[in-house]
């Protein structure tokens, strides 16, 4: 009887098992190759990162590189801050300018509307009504009036009043008191302390007198005695409105008076002509 040595005579495996082993080793090899490729790629990436951050070289060199980077970033930050401040300043200027233009637009709209309304009619009563509306609604006066110079007597007669009965207001001779002085000089009068909103007034000492002028000829005076409670002081547009009223209200009054006179004369002549033709 003989003994079998397993080392000398390995057991014969089946071909299927050999094939299976071989395919497993092929798969394993492929996995190894893929992993190897991934690691090589990662190495290249890390080398690139190291190069970028200056991780290579001596510590002194690294420090120098970092300091240079910090310096570059600081310079960039300063530049951006400067630009930001410039933009902020420009924004501020534009915003201020926008507010100014907005205000100017509003003022021009006020002036346009006043001018348009003043010349929208040739009826004397309508013109005086429009002047009163402008003074109430746009200037913000509570008590005020219009004096017109009587061509014959050369006396300023109160023509319309708001807030004060017309009978209470006496006629004024040019040169007499504040109103008369304004009519004589043709200069606007503003009571002392008006700009600070501290002016007081009476019938003899109004807040504002605006002579109505056609060129240098004064035809009347607008007199303001009291402002609305919410109107504490005048704005720039109010002074522009006074200037506009001084000229445009004067021409509107003058034109409407001429037109009314002409209409009246025309009626008289027509009536006379009819009378003549009937006879």
């Amino acid at each position, binding site marked *: 009887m003989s003994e079998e040595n397993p080392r000398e005579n390995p057991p014969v495996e089946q071909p299927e098992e050999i094939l299976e082993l071989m395919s497993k080793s092929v798969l394993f090899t492929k996995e190894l190759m893929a992993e190897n490729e991934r690691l090589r790629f990662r190495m290249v990436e890390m080398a690139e990162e190291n190069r970028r951050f200056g991780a290579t070289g001596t510590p002194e060199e690294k420090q120098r590189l970092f300091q240079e980077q910090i310096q570059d970033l600081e310079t960039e930050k300063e530049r951006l801050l400067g630009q930001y401040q410039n933009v902020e300043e420009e924004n501020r200027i534009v915003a201020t300018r926008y507010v100014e233009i907005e205000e100017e637009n509003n003022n021009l709209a006020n002036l346009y509307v006043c001018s348009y309304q003043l010349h929208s009619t040739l009826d004397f009563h309508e013109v005086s009504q429009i002047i009163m*509306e402008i003074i109430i609604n746009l200037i913000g006066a509570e008590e005020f009036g219009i004096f017109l110079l009587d061509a014959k007597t050369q006396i300023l007669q109160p023509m319309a009043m708001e807030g004060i009965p017309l009978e209470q207001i006496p006629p004024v001779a040019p040169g007499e008191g504040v109103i008369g002085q304004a009519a004589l000089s043709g200069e606007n009068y503003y009571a002392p302390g008006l700009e600070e909103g501290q002016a007081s007034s009476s019938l003899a000492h109004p807040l504002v007198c605006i002579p109505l002028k056609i060129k240098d000829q004064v035809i009347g005076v607008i007199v303001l005695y009291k402002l609305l409670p919410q109107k504490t002081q005048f704005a720039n547009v109010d002074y522009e409105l006074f200037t506009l009223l001084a000229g445009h209200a004067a021409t509107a009054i003058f034109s409407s008076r001429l037109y009314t006179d002409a209409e009246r004369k025309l009626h008289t002549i027509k009536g006379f002509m009819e009378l003549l033709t009937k006879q």
Partner: protein
Amino acid sequence: MPDVRILVVEDSPTMRQLISFALKRMKGIEIVEASDGVEGLKKLNSGTYNLIITDINMPVMDGLKLISLVRRDVKYRTIPIMIITTEGGAEDRERALALGADAYITKPIQAGNVLDTAKSLLGIP
């Protein structure tokens, strides 16, 4: 077809023109004008409005009467109302707001203020 219709009730033609000037800076807007409360109600009945702007002191029918009538009517109850008036007293303001006004502006007006208030009442940014 306008996006927004506004009814301006004001007896002064100067003020009506000035208010219209201020509001026309909004796009897609139509302004309908009335010179007193009665005319305002007639105009209100003849169309759809997004905002009513009214004065208080007016002939025939004043602004407060107009507001109270508008607020009593279910059809118009939700229309915002802005008052523009010379009456600057706190009592006048409180009375108008109690009647149903949504905003109260005193004369003399600033066009920008009227426009901003109108936009706010209309929900326009």
